[in-house]
Structures are given as structure tokens and as C-alpha cells.
């Protein structure tokens, strides 16, 4: 990664909702890079701002949400200042998005094939027959059985997981440079999950595609991502190589997260949980946002906002969990 210009560079991104009740800061100084061919896993508390980060990058923030600061660069070009029309060209061709919500990305009255062919023909110079063949091939690639029959069906005739795979096929249709995948395998069983993550890894290796992979499944992160970003209350709280973050998390929130995963080996009566819940937007405490729930919080944590160490890797924490002695 060293030296290679990043594919995506997000700098000090701030997003807020401007509501009647005031300005709610939802993303607060988020910075990260994704190199060509790299998979950055994004994890964190539900509502922490993972989807919002993806939505801001592809320029689809809905009012009252708005970018209030920061910069987003794609292949050396600043994209957060582009016009909506220019941004539409970037989307689909350069950035493919897999949304968390498969239903809103699919048109209920068009067949799956028609939607795929339209996306393919908008972005690639292909004729009708070629586009159709590619649509079937894409469905096969994401593991839809009998794609020749399925291609002429409507979204409601697909199961939840199959719709999700259609959305993945749509995102891949124009061979984008960057894929934003928001919970792409959430509704999928382990075997299809393995197929999708293998497909993403293959795209990264062979096409140099970069992927921002948002998921709650730590197993998927551990097996797919190169680096992991952990988010909490609109901030990036830990960033690092996947095996380091998974095996030896430095931020107390990440450590709590790792401890609450149900283990395959045994059935506990009660799962470990982090007590309390994430603060609401607009009620984020001063200092470290995790301090009300943090077992290591000190007086300093209540006043000073911790930041990620220079260079980006590490934990935004005044008292990080000790690094384990090397074994």
C-alpha cells in the first residue's frame, strides 16, 4: 500500500442533519483511505454512521442531511463538490453501491433482467443481446440458480437473500473502480456469503477494485477485509490491520464488541454485552463519546475528545487497552 496513491481518500468528513430542533452532527471528522485492490471493513454500533459515510461518498445524502465539512477524493479528483449530474456519471461507472436496503434499490415493476440491462447499457457500450447475456452471467456470478429463468422475474418473486444478490449484481454491472457494499451479505447464509466475499476478493485482486465493506459480521470481516475501521457515535474510533483489530483491539469499544460475539464452541446463558446504549445525536457527551459506557474512563475522557494517532492507525482513546505481549 505504501506509495500507491489512494483510490478513495476521505478527509475530516462532517455530516449533519439540519432539523427544526437544530443541527445534529452525525459524522464528526471522519478520515480514511482505500487503496486500489484493498478491502476496508467498516464496523460499529448500529446508528454510528456507517451507512451515512457510504451515502456521503456516493453523493446521495438526502436532506436534511448535508456535508458540512471535509473533502472526498476519488482517483485524485475531488468529488464532494461535483454537480448532481457529474456525480450521477461517477456513480454506477466509477463507484458501485450496494445499499443496506435491497428493496429501495430495485424497481418493483421491472423485471430483474430489465434493470440489469438498463444499468449495463447506460455505462458500457454493449448491444441489447450482449447486455442480456451479461445480465444472466452476472446473476450466475452472484449465485442465483437458473439465471435464465430468473432474469425475467420480478423482485417480489425472489427471496430476501436473492434480492440482495440482485443488488450486488447491479453494483458490479458497470465494473466500477470502487464498491461501497453496505451489509451485502447480511441476509445471506454462510455458503452464499462465502461466494459473495470470494467474488469481492477476486475483483480486488484481478481488477484492482477497492471495496468499502460495511458489515456487522466479524467473521466476514476477519476473512475478507485487509483493514478495519471501527465507528462509534459518528467518529472513527479505531483503524488498523484486520488481524490486529480483531485479535488485539486497542479501543475499549472494539474490545466490548469483540466480546459480545456468540461463540460457536459453547452456549453461554447470557452473552457479554456493553451496558447502556450509544448516545443519541444531539446528546453526545463532551470528551470521548464512549465515556458513559467505558470501564476505563478517567476525568480527562469527559472533557477532551481523543483523536486517532497521526498516520491514522490505532485507537482514538486516552487509555487504550494494553497491547498483548507477543507470543
Amino acid at each position, binding site marked *: 500500500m505504501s506509495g500507491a496513491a489512494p483510490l478513495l481518500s476521505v478527509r475530516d468528513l462532517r455530516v449533519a442533519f439540519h432539523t427544526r430542533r437544530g443541527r445534529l452532527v452525525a459524522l464528526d471528522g471522519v478520515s480514511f483511505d482505500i487503496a486500489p485492490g484493498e478491502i476496508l471493513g467498516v*464496523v*460499529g*454500533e*448500529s*446508528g*454510528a454512521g*456507517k*451507512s451515512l459515510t457510504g451515502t456521503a461518498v456516493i453523493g446521495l445524502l438526502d436532506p436534511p442531511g448535508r456535508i458540512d465539512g471535509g473533502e472526498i477524493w476519488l482517483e485524485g479528483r475531488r468529488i464532494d463538490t461535483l454537480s448532481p449530474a457529474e456525480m450521477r456519471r461517477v456513480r454506477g461507472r466509477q463507484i458501485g453501491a450496494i445499499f*443496506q*436496503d*435491497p*428493496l*429501495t434499490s430495485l424497481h418493483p415493476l421491472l423485471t430483474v433482467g430489465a434493470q440489469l440491462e438498463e444499468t449495463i447499457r447506460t455505462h458500457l457500450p454493449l448491444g441489447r443481446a450482449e447486455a442480456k447475456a451479461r445480465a444472466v452471467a452476472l446473476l*450466475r456470478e452472484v*449465485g442465483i*440458480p*437458473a439465471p435464465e*429463468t430468473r432474469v425475467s422475474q420480478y423482485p417480489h*418473486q425472489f*427471496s*430476501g*437473500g*436473492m434480492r*440482495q*444478490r440482485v443488488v450486488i449484481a447491479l453494483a458490479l454491472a458497470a465494473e466500477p473502480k470502487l464498491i461501497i457494499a453496505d451489509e451485502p451479505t447480511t*441476509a*445471506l*447464509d*454462510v*455458503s*452464499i*456469503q*462465502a*461466494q459473495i466475499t*470470494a467474488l469481492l476478493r477476486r475483483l480486488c485482486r484481478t481488477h484492482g477494485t477497492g471495496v468499502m465493506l460495511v458489515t*456487522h*459480521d*466479524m*467473521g*466476514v*470481516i*476477519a*476473512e*475478507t477485509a485487509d483493514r478495519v475501521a471501527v465507528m462509534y457515535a459518528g467518529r472513527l474510533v479505531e483503524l488498523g490491520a484486520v*488481524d490486529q483489530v*480483531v485479535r488485539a483491539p486497542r479501543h475499549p469499544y472494539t474490545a*466490548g*464488541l*469483540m466480546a*459480545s*460475539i*456468540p461463540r*460457536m464452541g459453547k*452456549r453461554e446463558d*447470557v*452473552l*457479554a*454485552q456493553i451496558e447502556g*446504549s450509544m448516545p*443519541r445525536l444531539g446528546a453526545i457527551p463532551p470528551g470521548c463519546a464512549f465515556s458513559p459506557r467505558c470501564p476505563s474512563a478517567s476525568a480527562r475522557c469527559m472533557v477532551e475528545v481523543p483523536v486517532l494517532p497521526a498516520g491514522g492507525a490505532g485507537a482514538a482513546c486516552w487509555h487504550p487497552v494494553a497491547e498483548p505481549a507477543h507470543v
Partner: protein
Amino acid sequence: MSEPIALTVRDAVCLFDVSPPFLDRVLSGARRRVLRAVDGVSFTVRRGRTLGVVGESGCGKSTLARMIVGLQPPTAGTLRLEDMPLADGSLARPRVQMIFQDPYASLNPRWRVGDIVAEPIRELKLVQGEAAVQARVAQLLETVGLAAADAARFPHAFSGGQRQRISIARALATEADVLVCDEPTSALDVSVQAQILNLMRRLQAELGLTYILISHNLSVVRHMADDIAIMYLGRFVETGPAEEVFANPRHPYTRLLLETIPDVQHPNRDRQPLSGEVPSPIDPPPGCPFHPRCPQAEARCRETRPALEMRDGRQVACFVVR
């Protein structure tokens, strides 16, 4: 000794007609096509227990769930909730509620969260008076990790996981006896997931709730389920006590499933997906539906379908391992 049965399902079948439109069919000479979403499933669930249903995407789990709660009429077979004896000795219909797989589609975008959660409370007159309704809504929202003030907001202002918590709060609001949970926590991060699963276990212990839990996440099922059913292409291929199935999976498909689970502690970055194309419920393969992908398949597997047979408290549908 054992609890009474809460749900009895006998030979439930659900077929969908997926033929091309009539005119196209006549012009092209194509035949009618039938998709066998659920193809003859029988089981019972005892009160206060959790049945976990696991299986590949598209194998018919949500269709089965929708039949149980009455949202999808079965093509054949019966699904019956058994009456419950009340304290005074009379019998009552149990209440059944579903937590949906897709938290986006299942919340009315034009309703405030408070009204979404309050609807069943008002409808079923579970508490008297508007103030009591509001208090109950606030309590439910806090139970699932949201704030009482969230009642005034609309669903679009919530993240995916927060919306799932709203639908869980609504399901809890009905005070249902039987909860059919379709991927209840797959949109949640693991720390919120732990809170919800702990809550579900606590409510079950306190109120004797019966759960049918559908999840592709095997570690969640392992944590929650007393019994487990492995589904493949519309049928159960293995059932039994969860502990035993996990400790000693018998059906080749169950074994492959357990081997494919990504493990946080021991990640396998070169994991190969299950080989072979996922068979289609429109054209299921003859014989054992798993044979195109089964490492142990024999000649007879390609011709005859193995029946689900009971042995040592476990049911397995396979010629080779039993």
C-alpha cells in the same frame, strides 16, 4: 414433564406459479412452471421452547414463517397454533406475531415510531387510556435500546439496525405468545445483538414465550435454539436437539454448513464456497435434492429421494449417513 405443544405443522406445502404470462406462454409454447417454496414440512414446537430454522437463501424459510403467522395460505397441509390453558382453566387462542426480515419494508414510513409501536396496544386494548399507552410505548422503546423521545420521529430518520429494533418493540408490544422471528438480529451490530438476544431469552424465561427463530447466523441459532431444523430446497433434511446437531451433524449438508461458518478467531481467508450450483426450486434435481453438491453421493442418490427418518431422537434425510 414436557410442556404442551404450542404449534403443530403437518405436511405444509407452498407452491408459487411462476409461469410466464399467459400470452407469452401460448406464443412460445412454454409450459407452466411451479416453484416449490415449501415442499412438505412437518414439526411441532413445545411451549416455551425455541426452534431454530437454518438453511440456504431461498430454501423457503420466510415462506414457512409467513404460513405460520397466516400471511401466506398453504397450498396443502395444516399449520395450527394450539389453544393455551389459562389460569382459570379455560382455553385461549395464543397470539402470534412476526418479526420481519426486512426492517425497511415492514415499517409504515408515514407513521411516527410511537404510533407504529402503539398500534397493537390500542388495537388489542392491552392497556387502558392514552397515557398508559404512551408509557408502555416509552418502556418498550427503552427495552430495545431506543429512547422514549424516538416515538416522535419517523422511520426514515433511523439506521437499519435502529429500524429493526422498532419492529422488535412492536412485536413485543403485542404480548404475543408465539414469536416468529425472521433474521431478527442480522441488521444489528454484535453488541446490540447481544442485548436483544439476552432480552429475548429473559422474556422467554419470564413469560414462557415460544420462538421460531430463522437465522442464517449459526452462532446465533446455537445460542438461542433448543431444537434445530436444517432446511434445504423446501424440506427439512435434519432436525434434532440443537446441542446434538451442532456437536455431531449427520446430514452432509449440515456438515458443510457448519464447516463454512467464518470464524473470527481462526479466519480462513482462502475459504472456498460450497461447490456446485445452488439447485433451483423450480427445477429441483431428481433423487436427493442435495446430490449435485454432495461429497458422499452414490448412484441411488440420483434416482430416489431419501425420506426424513427418525433415529436416536434425530431426523435425517439421507441414504448414506443415518
